[in-house]
C-alpha cells in the first residue's frame, strides 16, 4: 500500500452509502494494487455486497470517490465501467435463461466485439469473422474451466458448481483488468473451494487483478495478498492475512466478545 508509485487498479476514497436511515457503507477507503488479490471480509450485513455494487456501478455512491485505473467511475453506468475493463460474478448466480453455456460465455465477449444492431439484422459478412472469433474464444474459456463438454447444455440447468464456473468464464471472456468475485466459494464443498482457490491464483498469474468478497476464511487466508475487514459498514482493519488473523478486533467481531477474551 504505502509508497506505491504506480496508479492503483482501484482506489476508494471516503465512500459512503446511505439507504434512508441505514448507513450501509461508512467512510470506506482502500486501494487495490495491480496484479494483487485483495479480499473484503466481514460478518453478514457488514456492507460487503453493497460495496461491490457501488464499485460495479449498480448503485450510486452517497459520497466519496471510486477511481478505476486513475479514472473516477462513481456516477458512471455499469456497462460503461464494464467497458473500461471491470468484470464481475454474482453471489446469487445470474446466468441467462434459455441460453447454452457457450452462448452465456459468448455474451461475456460483448465488450471485446463490435457488431451492431444493423449488421446483425442484415447478417453482414463483416460480422462473420468476429462471430467465429467470439465463439472460439468462448470455447477456449470453457476448456480452461474444464466445462467444455457442457458447451451446448442450457446453462441454468447445470449443477451449482458448474454454474459458478460458467459465470467465471463469462467474466473472463471480457478480458478484464479487474475481476470482482462476489463469494466465489459460496455453496461449494471443500474440494470445489480448493479448486476455486487454485483458479483464482491462476487468474492472478494471467495478469488480472482480483477483488473478492468471501465468507470462507480458509479460502481468503490462503490466496489473498491483503484483506479489508468491514463491520457495520465501516472499515475495521486492512492488512495482510497473517496480521488480520492476529487482530483482536477482527477476532472479536467474528467470534464474539467471550471467545476473544
Amino acid at each position: 500500500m504505502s509508497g506505491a508509485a504506480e496508479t492503483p487498479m482501484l482506489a476508494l476514497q471516503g465512500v459512503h452509502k446511505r439507504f434512508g436511515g441505514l448507513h450501509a457503507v461508512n467512510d470506506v477507503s482502500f486501494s487495490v494494487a495491480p496484479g494483487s488479490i485483495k479480499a473484503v471480509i466481514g460478518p453478514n450485513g457488514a456492507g460487503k455486497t453493497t460495496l461491490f455494487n457501488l464499485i460495479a456501478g449498480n448503485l450510486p455512491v452517497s459520497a466519496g470517490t471510486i477511481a478505476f485505473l486513475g479514472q473516477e467511475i462513481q456516477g458512471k453506468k455499469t456497462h460503461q465501467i464494464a467497458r473500461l475493463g471491470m468484470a464481475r460474478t454474482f453471489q446469487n448466480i445470474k446466468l441467462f435463461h434459455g441460453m447454452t453455456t457457450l452462448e452465456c460465455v459468448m455474451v461475456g465477449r460483448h465488450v471485446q466485439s463490435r457488431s451492431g444492431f444493423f449488421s446483425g439484422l442484415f447478417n453482414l459478412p463483416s460480422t462473420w469473422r468476429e462471430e467465429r472469433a467470439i465463439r472460439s474464444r468462448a470455447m477456449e474459456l470453457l476448456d480452461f474451466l474444464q466445462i467444455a463438454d457442457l458447451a451446448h447444455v442450457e446453462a441454468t440447468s447445470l449443477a451449482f458448481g458448474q454454474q459458478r464456473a460458467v459465470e467465471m468464464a463469462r467474466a473472463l471472456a471480457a478480458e478484464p483488468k479487474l475481476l470482482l468475485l462476489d463469494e466465489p466459494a459460496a455453496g461449494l464443498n471443500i474440494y470445489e473451494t480448493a479448486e476455486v482457490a487454485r483458479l483464482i491464483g491462476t487468474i492472478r498469474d494471467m495478469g488480472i487483478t482480483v477483488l473478492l468478497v468471501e465468507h470462507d476464511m480458509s479460502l481468503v487466508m490462503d490466496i489473498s495478498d491483503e484483506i479489508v475487514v468491514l463491520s457495520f459498514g465501516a472499515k475495521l482493519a486492512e492488512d495482510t492475512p497473517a496480521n488480520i488473523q492476529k487482530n483482536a478486533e477482527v477476532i472479536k467481531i467474528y467470534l464474539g466478545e467471550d471467545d476473544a477474551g
Partner: protein
Amino acid sequence: MHIKKNLSLAALCLVTVGLHLLTTATGTQFYLTQLTMAAYYGLVVIGLGVMMGYAGQISIGHAGFFAIGGYLAAALTTRNLFAFHDSWIVQGLNSLGLLVAGQDIYGAQLLTVTPWAACGFAVTVAALVALVIGVPVLKLKGHYLAMATLGFGTIVYRVFLASPYFGEADGISEVPAFLLLPDLAGFGPVTINGAADHRVLNFYLAWGILILGMALLLNLIGSRMGRALRSLHSSEEAAEASGIETARCKLQVFVLSAVFAALAGVLLTHFNGGIGPSEASVMKSVRYVALVAVGGMTNLWGTLIMGVGLTFLSLRGVFGVHDDVVFGTILIGVMLFAPKGILSLRLRELGRRLLQGGRS
C-alpha cells in the same frame, strides 16, 4: 445454425408455393385473400415476438404502431392537397416527385402523396414515436411496462377515432393501390392491390415480405446484439455487467418491432383499400400478444406459424361472433397449460396436465 436457418426459410418458401398450388387445385383461390392479410398480420406478430419473447419487453400497444402506419399511408394517399397547391410545402413536394395528380369521379382536381412517399413517411413517424415514447416507457418493467404501452395504444386509438382528418369512426376508404414497380418486363406493373385479378401476385408479395422479415429477425437473434437482447431478458444486471447497454438495446428492438408493425399497417391498408379505427383498438394489441404467447415466446417459428394460422382462421370467420372470446380463451389456456407455446406440447403431457388442474 446457419444451415438450419436457411433450410427453414427455404421450407417456408416451399410452403408458400404449396399454399398457392393447393388453393388452385381445390378451386379455393379466394383463400389467398385472407392468406395475404394473415401474412401482413404475421409481420406484426413476429416483430413483437422478438421484442417480447427474446428481449422480454411486453407491449400491449402494437396495434397503435400498425394504425400509425396504416392511417398515415391512407390519409396521405387520399387527402386532396389541391387546395394548398400554391403553398411552398406542396410545391416543394411536387417538385421532388412525391405527389401525384389526378381527378376524382366528379372530375375535380386531385393532388395526393405518392404511396412510396407516404409509406416512407408513415414508417418514419412510427419509428420516431416508438423512439420518443420508448425512452421513458422502457425504463419500466413487467406489469408497469404493460400498463404504459396499453395507455399508449389507447391514446392512439382515441386520436384516430376523434380526428375528422382520419375519418373518425368511419376510418379512411378508397385508398389507392400501391405501385411498387412500374411495368418493366411486360408482366404488368407490380401493385399492392386487393382486386381479384391481383390476388396471386399479392399473395406472393405479402408472403415474400413476411419471409424477408423472418430472415432479418432470425439473423438478429443469432447475432451479437441478439445475444445481448436475450441476456437482458433474464438479468439486466448481469447483462450490464457484461458491458451491454441495456436501455439502448431495448429501445432498438422496440423501434424495430414498431417499424415491422407500421410497415404491415401501410401494406395491408393498400391491400384492403382502407383502414378503420378497429385496427388501432386495444383488442388488436391483446391479440398480437396472445399470438406471440401461443407461438411460444422464445420460438420465432412457432410465433410465425401460430400468428399466421390463427389469424387466417379468424379472418375466414371460423370463430364467428366469438372471435375475441376465442383469442382471450387461447391466451388463458396457453398461460396455464403451455407457457412455452402450443408447439412445445406433447399431447400425452397435455392430458396429464389437464388432469392435474393446470399446475405445471
